[in-house]
C-alpha cells in the first residue's frame, strides 16, 4: 500500500478528535476551487461510509467499488455546484443513492438481455457469523440468500429505504433528506417493504429479521 502523506493523517486525526464537527473540517470553498488536498480529506472521511452504502444496496463488491469510484468522481466534478442548502453529508448521500440506482437499473437492463446477475457470495459470507459451527453457518447462509433475493425484488425506493433503515447508521430524517422524500413517505416505503418481505419469506426468517 502506498504511504499516505503525513499532513493528511494529521488532518484526519484532528477531525476524529472533534467528531461532531467533522463536516465543518472539510474546506468546502477549497473543494470548490478544485483543491486536491481538500478532496483527499473528504475521501478519507467519507470513503468507508459511501462504500458500505453501495455494498449494502448493490450487494455486490465489484459493483460497489465501481459505484464508489463513480461517486467520488461526480463529487469532485459537481462540488462547484454545491450551494450549501443541505449538509455536505446529505449531498454526498444523495449522489451515492443516485449512483446506486443507476447501477441497479444498468444491472436490470443486463438481466433483461439474458445476463443473470446473482448475489455476490462474498456479500452472503460477509453477513453471516463466522463463529458458528459449519452446519449452522451453512443454514444461515441459505437463509441470508433467500432473504437477499426477496430484498432484491423490492421496488428501487423500498429497497433503498429498507436497507438504509437497517444499516443502523441512518435516522428516518437522514433517509428522507438523502432520498429527497418526506418523512411519511419514508415510513410508508419501509412499511410496504416489510409487508412485501413478510409475504414472501418463511416464518423463521421473518420472525427474526423483519
Amino acid at each position, binding site marked *: 500500500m502506498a504511504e499516505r502523506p503525513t499532513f493528511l493523517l494529521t488532518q484526519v486525526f484532528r477531525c476524529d478528535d472533534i467528531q461532531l464537527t467533522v463536516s465543518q473540517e472539510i474546506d468546502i470553498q477549497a473543494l470548490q476551487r478544485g483543491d486536491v488536498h481538500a478532496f483527499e480529506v473528504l475521501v478519507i472521511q467519507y470513503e468507508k461510509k459511501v462504500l458500505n452504502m453501495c455494498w449494502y444496496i448493490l450487494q455486490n463488491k465489484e459493483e460497489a467499488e465501481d459505484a464508489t469510484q463513480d461517486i467520488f468522481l461526480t*463529487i469532485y466534478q459537481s462540488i462547484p455546484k454545491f450551494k450549501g442548502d443541505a449538509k455536505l453529508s446529505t449531498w454526498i448521500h444523495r449522489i451515492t443513492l443516485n449512483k446506486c440506482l443507476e447501477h441497479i437499473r444498468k444491472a436490470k437492463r443486463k438481466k433483461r438481455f439474458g445476463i443473470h446477475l446473482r448475489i455476490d457470495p462474498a456479500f452472503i459470507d*460477509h453477513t453471516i457469523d463466522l463463529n458458528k459451527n459449519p452446519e449452522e453457518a451453512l443454514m444461515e447462509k441459505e437463509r441470508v440468500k433467500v432473504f437477499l433475493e426477496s430484498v432484491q425484488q423490492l421496488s428501487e425506493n423500498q429497497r433503498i429505504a429498507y436497507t438504509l433503515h*437497517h444499516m443502523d447508521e441512518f435516522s428516518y430524517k437522514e433517509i428522507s433528506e438523502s432520498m429527497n422524500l418526506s418523512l411519511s413517505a419514508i415510513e410508508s416505503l419501509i412499511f410496504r417493504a416489510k409487508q412485501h418481505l413478510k409475504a414472501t419469506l418463511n416464518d423463521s426468517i421473518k420472525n427474526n429479521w423483519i
Partner: protein
Amino acid sequence: MQNLNEHPFSKKRIEVSSSLHDMLMQAPALAKKEKRQTGFFAIVTILCLTLNLLYFSSRQEKLAEEELLETQYANFGSNLSI
C-alpha cells in the same frame, strides 16, 4: 438455538482496500482527463460538422449549376445570329 435476531444489514462493515483508496484519490486527475477528452471531442465534432456543411453547400451549388446545364435552356441563344 442460534441467534438469528441480528439483522444481516446491521452487521459488519467492509474496509476500503488500498487499491480502491488510491483510485479514489486519483479522481481529480481523472476528472481533468475526462474534461480534456470531452473538450477535444467537442472541438472535433464541431470541426467535422463545419467541414460537412461547407462540403455540402459547395456540392449543392455545383449540382445546381450542373442541373441548369442539362436543361433545354442550357444552350439558349448559342445558335442565334444577327
